[in-house]
């Protein structure tokens, strides 16, 4: 045999481990369930079993949410800075939000607000990269999203995919240098649409579980010939997804997690019959059913012009949906083990521009956390008088990522293997922000 690269060989062995492991789970299956999904066994060792957060719901407001017009108002700044919104007293002593998010203000005692997030990337895609991966974009390598890292490190649970995007993913939501097997499951359907249904999760008529098992065995028979020819990441990722699919199809409880009709109409109303409202309700169902990482996006925050009327409508939707999600999780006793993250790629310029909008501003902005072992009722850090720079306790994108990873039981200093067998820390140059933790 040719030895081209001894270290590549050892990585290939690890891949083989995963593959034979998956094969084992497949062939040992008279039933289609009971096997852990996706992630190789050796990696599960990195996960703590006593982690405070079992799931993460990452709500991403794409475009860049104006911090000054939401969680970090500057009522005493000149009008061209403070903007048109008034403030409203929050449930926390002496702390105010803008008046367009009164419901969130009323549950501030359940939240941790970081007012000193900071990074240096003012272009959307670069800012999104920072906040989705915890890394600055690099010209040589694409980093995996936090969701893909969670899928890689923790694997799936309860026959459900580890990482789900509601309703779809996008740039830097993917696996980066990790295998395509850790890609998110994208619903491809809108929870707020009348006929919302995640497709293809049930077998066609005439195919009962036994027949599906027979079909699966036939494929394994045929594939065994092909596998003798060699291996490739794409083929292995496909194999991993087939295993996940069979498990999901075979699990009634798993499939039910995607069924919004199982929620009472009144509760659906409370979340709001809006895109974000129904997405968040579905996210709660998925989190409670066992999905590790749920990415929910909501667009429309890139308000370069006429920010005040536009953002008021946008934030009304957030106000209702997000406050209901937190209260709902709390009353069901799930908030403690679900980490909710309301985040964005950057803030917006302190000064209102001549089009009555605000432009990109990564120097300082706000991010909100709740549950999953973070403090209830806490404001972390502050920005300067006009919301231009962090004034105290700046938090970087790597810091935030490291803190989130820690809460789900992943050691952020653990190394992942990138192509060329180059080990890369899950997060680099970061510190866990202990002040955020309860």
């Amino acid at each position: 045999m040719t030895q081209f690269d001894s270290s590549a060989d050892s990585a290939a062995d690890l891949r083989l481990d995963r593959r034979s492991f998956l094969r084992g789970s497949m062939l040992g299956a008279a039933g289609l369930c009971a096997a852990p999904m996706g992630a190789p066994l050796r990696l599960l060792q990195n996960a703590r079993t006593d982690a405070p957060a079992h799931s993460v719901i990452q709500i991403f407001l794409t475009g860049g949410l104006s911090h000054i017009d939401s969680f970090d108002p500057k009522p005493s700044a000149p009008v061209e800075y403070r903007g048109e919104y008034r403030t409203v007293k929050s449930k926390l002593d002496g702390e105010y939000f803008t008046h367009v998010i009164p419901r969130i203000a009323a549950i501030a005692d359940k939240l941790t607000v970081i007012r000193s997030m900071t990074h240096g990337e003012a272009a959307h895609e670069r800012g999104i990269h920072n906040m989705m991966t915890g890394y600055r974009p690099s010209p040589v390598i694409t980093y995996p999203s936090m969701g893909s890292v969670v899928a890689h490190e923790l694997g799936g649970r309860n026959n459900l995919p580890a990482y789900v995007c509601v309703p779809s993913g996008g740039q830097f939501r993917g696996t980066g240098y990790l295998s395509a097997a850790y890609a998110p499951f994208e619903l491809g359907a809108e929870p707020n649409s009348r006929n919302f249904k995640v497709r293809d999760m049930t077998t066609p008529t005439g195919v009962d579980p036994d027949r599906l098992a027979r079909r699966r065995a036939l494929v394994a028979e045929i594939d065994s010939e092909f596998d003798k020819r060699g291996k490739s990441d794409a083929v292995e990722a496909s194999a991993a997804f087939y295993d996940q699919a069979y498990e999901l199809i075979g699990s009634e409880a798993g499939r039910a997690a995607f069924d919004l009709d199982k929620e009472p109409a009144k509760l659906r109303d409370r979340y709001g019959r809006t895109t974000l409202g129904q997405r968040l309700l579905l996210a709660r169902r998925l989190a409670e059913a066992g999905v590790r990482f749920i990415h929910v996006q909501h667009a429309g925050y890139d308000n370069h012009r006429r920010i005040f009327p536009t953002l008021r409508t946008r934030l009304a939707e957030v106000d209702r949906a997000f406050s209901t999600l937190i209260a709902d999780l709390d009353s069901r006793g799930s908030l403690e083990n679900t980490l909710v993250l309301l985040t964005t790629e950057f803030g917006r310029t302190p000064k209102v521009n001549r089009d009555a909008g605000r432009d990109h501003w990564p120097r300082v902005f706000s991010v909100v956390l709740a549950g999953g072992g973070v403090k209830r009722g806490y404001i972390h850090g502050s920005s300067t008088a006009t919301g231009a720079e962090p004034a105290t306790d700046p938090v970087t994108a790597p810091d935030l990522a490291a803190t989130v990873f820690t809460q789900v039981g992943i050691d952020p200093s653990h190394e992942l293997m990138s192509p060329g067998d180059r080990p890369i820390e899950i997060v680099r140059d970061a510190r866990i922000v202990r002040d955020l933790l309860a």
Partner: protein
Amino acid sequence: MHVSNNRWFAAALLCASLSAQQPTRLEIAPGDIRLDDGRDRQRVIAIVTHDDGTTRDVTDAVEWALSSDVHAALQDAELTPRADGECELSATFGKLTANTTVTVANTGKQPPVSFANEVIPVLTRSGCNAGTCHGSASGKNGFGLSLFGFDRDGDHRKLTRELRGRRIDTADPDASLILLKPTGGVPHKGGKRLTPDGEGYATLRRWIEAGARNDVKQAPELVGLELFPEQAVLAGPDLLQRVVVRARYSDGSDRDVTDLSILSSSNEVAATVNANGVIRSAEPGETFVMARYGTFALVTQVLVLPKDVAFTWPGDVEPANYIDASIFDKLGKQRIAPAARCDDATFVRRVYLDVLNLLPTPDETRRFLADDNPNKRVELVDALLERPEFPDVWAMQWAEILRIEPEQLEPKGMYVYHDWLRDAFQSNRPLDEIVRELLTSKGGNFEQPQSNFYLVERSTKGIAENVAQVFMGIRIQCAQCHNHPFERWTMDDYYGFAAFFNRVRSKRGEDPRERIVFVTGGGELANPVTGVVAKPTFLGGATPEIKRGQDRRAVVADWLTAGDNPFFAKNIANRVFARFFGRGVVDPPDDVRVSNPPSHPELYEQLGTKLVEYGYDLRQLIRDICASHSYQAAAHPDAPPASTFAGVNVRRLTAEQLLDAISDVTQVPTKYDRLPLGARATQVVNPTGNRFLGVFGRPARESACTCDRRNEPTLSQVLHLINGATTTAKLRDDKGRLRRLLASKDVSDDAVLDELFLAAYSRMPTDGERDKLLQKVRDGDRATNWEDVFWAILNSREFLFTH
């Protein structure tokens, strides 16, 4: 320097193992040494290349000699000037010798330290003007420099004028803040960046002492950079290789800037490089060592091999053409044997998919397999290139990067534009001609379909960015706001290139859906930092004379499509290569930059040269590709990295290929919007609609980026194949292949299996497969069992992947 392919190849066949390695060539780098003034000096290295392709740094082992020590002195492999004149430097290593001339001039001159060419590089190398430090937009701690020194006048002002001049103290240089801070003499949040006894400190100090003058206007411009050696092949760990970086200036002088460059390794597992310019090998693998200096960056390829590995080139594998020569050259150096040639069944399936996006029919496969003409693979490719499905494939590929979609173009514009493109590929119009027509297009977009090019993206900057990315593979977006940190593109380059397109306008036509593209007589574009009007300038090239009234776009189109254009032909050819090999020599093909170097630099050049030589004939280039052993390679048993091209790069069928394959294998056609039944997914013009194609990663054509097409498997795709309507309905269709075969009394189970295997895999079942599968069919209801077998075939890896 590269060893010539053929020579190496011959050597590899003869030479069985590393232990027999013989030094064959000695080289001094850099060559043609100049010492331009009394302060100048130049370090030199000596590299030996062995007959097996490996290299070794023998700077310390050779015998150095100067033909005369009147003009220059050599100590520790560094030349210093003595007196004006010329002499010869030679190195001897065993039986090998190498020579180069040393020219010494202006020995009497001791030029002052240059702010532009020495001080700024010290600040850059020390990290002072990085984005995370003083180079950040708002500076750091009240002190802001331009990012990587792109505004040198501004930097000088800030260093000398701001903070009441405390940053610089010409009377007492050591008391200057720019020396106290980075050495830790006073607290510095950025930490210790310089040591008082180091070169950087000395440079800054001498500059301050001499008056801290700004010579940005007078100093010679940096015009080029060289990095030596061009390649290193190190057999074993802990081998050292020195690098030398030499800068060339507009006045003809050069300078050894090894100490002023920023050096990095793209894969430190394979090899590291330290601040003194020494590469150290580690684990086997490949890395690119990059040197950055000023606005230039260069890489050198470093291959690290396992030590003393016996390696024999497989006797039956020979290079078919230049593609193999380059790929095999590197494989040999890496001690990787290429995979064997694939069998006919694998070839016929692969080549149909790659050339036509289709599977061969069972009859076509039978005919090919039975043919005993030794030249049948070449003839098959020739025949496929004449089929009408071929232009469909290329119209689709180009429609993606040209973003042909109905939102910007109106449905009618979209269809006429697509038809124009398809006709161009059908009639085999040269690619340069197609591009020139697009770039110089004018008129109504319904009448002049090419003019849709300027309607997809209408902003000057957006057009320029698309032209750079689509036709040169260069992403210049970042240079809109700042000089690119790793690349050569500056804001001046960006605005200079964009200025070619700033007079394109469009207006509504008589038909309100139509738009008319035209060019105005005036209008200029300015660099927003300097405020200076940008003269139309070729990317990385000259500023052409443009006559009054001349269409600037025609000027840039001529430059782009000229045979010696440094970007166009290579990039276009590499995109073609990438379609057939699953990845480009530069990959992705539309991200050409120093820090993303080609895996096979010579091949990248040659693909472009050949395309020009062929008169931009796409079909001829495809013939070369398909004729190569590398394209015809089987799967590699050891799965080496895909970038080696040692074996086939197994990849999922694209959205269009897969849907058409399912339709063909089941013989149940899919109905596509606005196309007659029987039309193919590849012919679909509108990139919206049809859920299957969306789920399997067809691009929405929202950007010119090839990354818009997703070819990775996902859970949604797998669920759809297992449970979805596409497979289920087609399996059960009464008019479909399976039901018809089963309904026919004279077709045996054996024959059914043959037919399904030929249709899906382009091969006959093996005896083992036949036994096992037919046994499953016999047990129970025949129709149900056959449906299950067919379902399994459609869900099998051999069907879902190109291999």
